[in-house]
């Protein structure tokens, strides 16, 4: 059995979720969306899964559609929150984890989804941040992700605009700003996985099996430390791969990747966690 990188990536994201967490992903985030369903159906059965722009609670969608607010995404949900119901929960601190990405991400996990280049005349006008600028302050933990690390333009020394806050901003750190949320806990890229040190800076802890630390350094615009022992990202189990394929038959997750990344293919190796 073989699997492709998009499948491994989604499973890596899923593993940042703990059981019994309240978890949310934003719109336009198919990898995070698929990951939440993988977690719910494997190691986190009692998580509260809030489905992106539908605000549906624990749905069982027949497939992941290419848009974040198609009705298919609330199928099987006994209840869908109102928009304000979700955002109120997020700002008062009742949401444990959110997935967040960015066109630019700095060492502290600040993200820019507003504009690259000067704000008055942007080089690239990005889509915008949705609700992130407020709820990144108060949600328990953030899992950041990007599929564009290798471009060299995503992990930057300084964001041209801070849309969503990480651990430390030019205006102060979270404690100084009065924010109750814990900030970024993990950052998963197509090269590896970072956690955050006591100063709030990204630290490389794992790389994918076909990536070395030098490749990560070359692609990263900020200095980072590494764990004493940089491990290989744990490979997906058969159960996880089956769920990825079942929940996302249209392959919507693939739309996040540069086509070259989708050619990364691996042989599945049985291990004790795998119920093949």
């Amino acid at each position, binding site marked *: 059995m073989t699997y492709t990188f998009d499948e491994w990536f989604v499973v890596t994201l899923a593993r940042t979720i703990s059981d019994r967490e309240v978890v949310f992903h934003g719109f336009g985030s198919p990898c995070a969306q698929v990951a939440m369903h993988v977690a719910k159906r494997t190691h986190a059965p009692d998580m509260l899964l809030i489905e992106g722009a539908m605000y549906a609670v624990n749905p069982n969608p027949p497939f992941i559609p290419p848009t974040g607010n*198609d009705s298919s995404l609330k199928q099987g949900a006994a209840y*869908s929150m*109102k*928009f304000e119901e979700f955002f109120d929960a997020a*700002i008062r601190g009742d949401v444990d984890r959110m997935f967040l990405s960015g066109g630019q991400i700095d060492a502290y996990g600040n993200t820019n989804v507003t504009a690259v280049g000067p704000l008055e005349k942007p080089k690239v006008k990005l889509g915008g941040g949705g*609700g992130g600028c*407020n709820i990144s302050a108060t949600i328990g933990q953030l899992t950041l992700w990007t599929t564009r690390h290798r471009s060299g333009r995503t992990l930057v020394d300084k964001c041209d605009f801070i849309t969503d806050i990480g651990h430390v901003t030019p205006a102060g750190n979270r404690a100084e700003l009065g924010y109750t949320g814990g900030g970024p806990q993990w950052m998963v890229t197509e090269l590896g996985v970072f956690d955050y040190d006591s100063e709030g800076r990204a630290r490389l802890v794992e790389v994918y099996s076909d990536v070395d630390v030098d490749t990560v350094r070359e692609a990263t615009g900020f200095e980072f430390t590494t764990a004493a022992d940089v491990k290989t990202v744990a490979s997906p189990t058969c159960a996880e791969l089956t769920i990825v394929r079942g929940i996302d038959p249209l392959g919507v997750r693939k739309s996040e990747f540069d086509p070259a990344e989708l050619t990364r293919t691996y042989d599945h190796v049985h291990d004790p966690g795998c119920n093949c």
Partner: protein
Amino acid sequence: MIFLDPDKRVDLATAASHIGDGALLALGGGLSSRLPMALVRELVRQGRTSLHVVGSAHSMDVDLLVAAGALSICEESYVGFEQDLGLAPAYRRAAESGTITLRESCCVTILTQLRAAEMGLPFLPVRGIKGTDMRRLHPEYAETTCPFTGEVLVAVPPLIPDAALIHAPLGDLHGNLYLDKPYVLDERFAGASRAVIATVDRIVSTDELVEYGITIPAHYVQAVAEVPFGAHPASSYPNYAYDRDHMGVYVKAASKPESAAQYIEEWVMLPDGEDGYRAKLGEESLQRLTTWSESTQTWKGLFA
């Protein structure tokens, strides 16, 4: 404002005529769901200019207004076509060349500002924003100190749109509207705006509407126009799914000014308006979008 006329039914042109140049508009729905597309197309046909739009995460409604030169200020929290079709081409071009004013906002901030308007308050505080660059886009925000705890919070003013443009699958002659979730900000828009201008796929009796449930009551609604497929190419569940293929046609056309203008000529500036639009799409392609409930296979097939 409160509207008491017992019969609010008008044609689309009359509905759109309530909106003037330079109006501050709240766009209902979001992303690919219940966008007020027929109203947007009609505003373009009527040559409206200098519009200022606010809302949460939107796509083709905003981009088409930009492509048509109808929009001056954009205060949406996101404009784009998600990962699937990417950045919003006309919006991006206009933002990068400075032909529209960017006032990008955040869903929570907009929600808070609408609540201030609904409650008739001069401001409300939010806990976020500090540490981000959002205030560079919003010099109107201020800071306030909590009289009880001393916490310094960002204060935001009320947001009172001149009109909320809302598309609903069903409504009645009084202007009562039934929406399928997600309602997004539409209930808040209805309470905060000076008027709701609505389109509905179908007008039904009040008794039938009550069985579905009324989401937005008639007294907020100034005008309601029956426009079948009035959200197209966005979805209007339970009636029809979104038309991903047509969104793709638009995004491709919008990638260059010349082809964007051609799209508008071909799909919007039709002499018989929405009747012409539906005729051009063809009954078969529209009916296909209503088949989503037949089976998972059919539903999934709409997006393959």
